[in-house]
């Protein structure tokens, strides 16, 4: 049984990241897009933690905690926008949200 190296972590993280990007690009429901963004962020966290282990210091883990906080804030703001938007348009389907072109 070989030792689990940084490469293993990076592969898993890359796979998570791709899954997240695909979710963001393809899903219509804003809630699921927000969940996919969480996947992306957690892939990054995994990278940071893996590099922290590889280098033997705690900088990467510190960043990971920052990102967890950031993800919580982002989820709160995103869900707030979502509810405000639902009150106006009675939908959370991202296809129908094209106001940015103006």
């Amino acid at each position, binding site marked *: 049984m070989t030792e689990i190296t940084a490469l293993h972590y990076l592969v898993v993280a890359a796979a998570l990241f791709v899954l997240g*990007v695909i979710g*963001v*690009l*393809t899903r219509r429901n804003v809630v699921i*897009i927000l969940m996919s963004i969480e996947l992306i962020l957690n892939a990054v966290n995994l990278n940071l933690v893996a590099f922290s282990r590889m280098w033997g210091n705690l900088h990467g883990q510190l960043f990971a905690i920052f990102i967890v906080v950031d993800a919580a804030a982002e989820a709160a703001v995103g869900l707030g926008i979502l509810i405000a938007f639902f009150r106006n348009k009675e939908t959370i389907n*991202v*296809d129908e*949200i*094209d*106001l*940015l*072109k*103006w």
Partner: protein
Amino acid sequence: MFFLNNIWLIPLFPAFGAAMMFFFGRRLQKATVNAVCVGVVVVAFLFACFTVVEYTHFAHGTGQPFEKIVYTWLGSGDGHLNFVKRDGTTASFNADAGFLLDPLSSIWLLFVTGVGMLIHIYSTGYMAHEGGYYRFFGYMNLFMFSMLTLILANNYMLLFVGWEGVGLCSYLLIGFYFHRKSASDAANKAFIVNRIGDAGFILGALTLAWFFGSFRFTDINELASHSNFVGGDIHILTIAALLLFVGACGKSAQLPLYVWLPDAMEGPTPVSALIHAATMVTAGVYMVARSNAVFMLAPSAMKTVAIVGALTAVFAASIGLVQNDIKRVLAYSTVSQLGYMFLALGVGAFAAGVFHVFTHAFFKALLFLGSGSVIHAMSGEQDMRNMGDLRGRIPTTFKTMFVATLAIAGIPPLAGFFSKDEILWQAWRSADGGFPYLWLIGFGTALMTAFYMARLIFLTFYGKPRMGHEVEHHIHESPKSMTGPLVVLAVCSVCAGWLGVPASLGGTNAFGKFLEPVFAREAAVAPSTSGVPSAPQEPVGEEHRGLEWSLMILSVGAAVVGGGWAYRYYASAGKDYPEPIAVKAPPIYTLLYNKWFVDEAYDYAFTGRRKLGGIRLGAMGAGEASSWFDAKIIDGAVNDAGWVTRAFATLSTWWDKWIIDGVCVNGPAILARMLSYPARLFEWGLVQWYALVMVAGLLGFGVYYVWK
């Protein structure tokens, strides 16, 4: 002092009768109506007699007025209703329900209640077969109330209440036969013409209040007698006096407002006798005599009064010469006699004017009541052309009317002789320039008066019967209730003049002496230099006596000549008798018969009944023209200006909308939008596409760098 202190009860007696008729009249029997309505007037008459007797004891011949203020009617005396007088000081607006008795109002009080009582009694006979019996007596009592208020008022405001009240009753009684169009038209005419005068009266009274600061006669007399006036004051007083005289012209049927009185004959005959001959139409004379202190300060107003009076006298008499309706002759006679009264007032002979009012009340009431008796006998016929030879068939009426005719024509020693000659003599005497002409006009009028009155008597009572057989068969003397008052009035017509026998005929002129205190005080203050006709107070000298006698003989001669002419032409008039004036001067006859075309002239000038191709003529036409001018020219110009502004605004809007906004503002925006169109194609708004492009770009970079 019981009667004097309760003088306010006098108008209330007839008011009570009127109220009874108003509330319960419909349900009352005729006998009850008679008892109430005649009863209250009899009570008022007796009360008035006792009051005047008490007054003579009270005044002791000094003419000191008795004033009884019952309560404050308008204003409060505590300064809540103040106004600024002409001299800048503040006066309180105050009119009391106050009663004034002095020699002047005593005379009116006696003959109004006295004649009113006789006419009420007469009406019980005359109106016996008419519908609306209680309504008639209710109105008559209301009239008595108003007239007594007018006479006894102690200020102009309360006098105005009576003044309007008698006008209302006149309207109601002229229109008594309201189902007849002519009667309701006549009632409207009387009311409307009177309103013109009333407007003058109220303006005059307010001018006096503004000047003197009071409405009370006693205050105004006192101030007018004991103040110094400068030029401007005299002008204001002249205007006030002329305005009051306009009121008098309306109520007392003087030129040019006399037109309502002949038409007022549409009312029942007792009404014509009471209101339109004996009492109400003398209200103007009363008011001018009451305001004598003011008039004496305004010489030009006095002259106007004299001239209008004289012209009215001769004008109305000339119309009376040819009228065929028995009541219309008497109506024009009334207008003419009222002219005499104003002539007397205008030359400063107030006592003579009042004396003529007094005597005229008896003989003119008698003439009207007599004519009513004739009409009664003739089954309603009023046209003298269809009468004749009635003297034997209705003897009492004939005798009494004959007496009245002698009285009005001025045959001594009947009442009219003394009063009319007093007026003519005073007109001659106060010869401050032009007044002998007034005497001449009065003299001519006396001649005409004798002629038309004799014509009336001869056409009615002499000659051959000209009525139809049916009517002739029904001729009968009137009942006692009608002939009784005629006899009483005939006695008065004979005797009333003896109260004022002038000194030149050995009399004492008790009437003038009684009135002297009312007028003498004011006569004394008239500025002697301004040409005011000074009221003659000094005893007549011997050198004047001859002149006075010759004038008297002249006027008696005129009466005899006028009567003689009428005898010659009418005394044996058969069917189709010729009218002498129509034979000798047809144009003049047409002119007189059509009343100088005054009504037609008024139609052209004021009422707007005449049209020229759809356009009204006269004042109404001018009103319509100015209304048209306002609507079409003034408003048209305003609207055109508005239209032009709107057109400019439209243009400016267009400019703003299409040039400024369109080209200059929106133009660059449209340009920018067109130019930016290709750029916008990249930005279609779906966030996921942006993200996809971004990912694709990143992948592209990654692949490029990895594989390079």
